[in-house]
């Protein structure tokens, strides 16, 4: 495999992986949106007012938390794409050693 071909394969593989990761952004975002609606009125728990308070704090906590996981996956996907693009640039220049690309990140 020529160096140019190698760069192309690397770029393609990383783009595909970036897309795979990006596909999981939506599910965590939807989980977050669902959890935002998960609060329960204190009266529903009868005399369990303290439990209700703890639960409703927690549900908002996890809505935020799963939202941050979704955001993190966006960044992961973006980073992978930037790595793929670096391989693409290397392919165009055809002058950069593969190992040097790895060292950039």
């Amino acid at each position, binding site marked *: 495999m020529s160096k140019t071909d190698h760069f192309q*394969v*690397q770029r393609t*593989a*990383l783009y595909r*992986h970036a897309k*795979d*990761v990006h*596909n*999981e952004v939506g*599910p*965590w975002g*939807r*989980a977050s949106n*669902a*959890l935002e*609606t*998960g*609060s*329960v*009125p204190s*009266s*529903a*728990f*009868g*005399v*369990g*007012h*303290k*439990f*209700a*308070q*703890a*639960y409703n*704090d*927690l*549900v908002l*906590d*996890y809505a*935020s*938390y*799963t939202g*941050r*996981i979704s*955001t*993190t996956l966006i*960044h*992961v996907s*973006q*980073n*992978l794409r*930037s*790595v793929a693009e670096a391989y693409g640039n290397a392919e165009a220049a055809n002058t950069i050693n*593969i*190992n040097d*690309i*790895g*060292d*950039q*990140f």
Partner: protein
Amino acid sequence: MSGAPPILPPDFPLTGTVEKIGEVSAELRDKIVKIINDNWGDVGKIKHARDTVWRSAIATAQQSMSNLQGDLDRLNSGKETSIWSGEARVEYVTWRNNFNLRNLTPTYNNMIEIKNKLDEAIGKVNGARIRIVAMVVEIGITVAGMATAENPVSLAAAVIAGLSLVGSFLEFELNLRNEFDNLGSSLQTLRDSRKVGYNDGLEYGAPPKFASDVISNWKAWESTQKPTAGN
């Protein structure tokens, strides 16, 4: 003596019995009404949160974690390793494994625990409901028996017996409050568990909000950063 009709939860099945008790003793009726309104709860709303929110989120998280692991496994396969190699790949795979270990897996496990706590809460509210219905039926039977006696002494005895049953329920209610408080504390423990340290000295916390200037630096992508306000 009965006064205005008692305001009770719409799904309480013995409204008529409570009204009949009120015809004998407004004091007894008012105590029963307070017990019902304090303890009856709304199981439907808790079940809705459990089924449409938590079960759905858990299933989504489980599927996504499986997908993400599959993606990573493919990246780690011999074929992909030969395609993408070097320090960046190693840093990335390490970060992904840590992300799974410290963030995704504990989040998933905790969501299951929270759903289980809701199950327990549903059980407690249902338990209170059963006790309430039993109490109202028993008081209703006692009072109905007295209504035909036309005997003031027996009537007073029925009211006293009813108040005694109310007192027994209030003891049950006190224990129920304590049980709910303990259940709430266990939820707080779950919340705090996100900060439990790991053997490797790293801390499991919320995913940091990555700044754009570290996006291209895998080494900076440690999930050990403590979340800051607004993060």
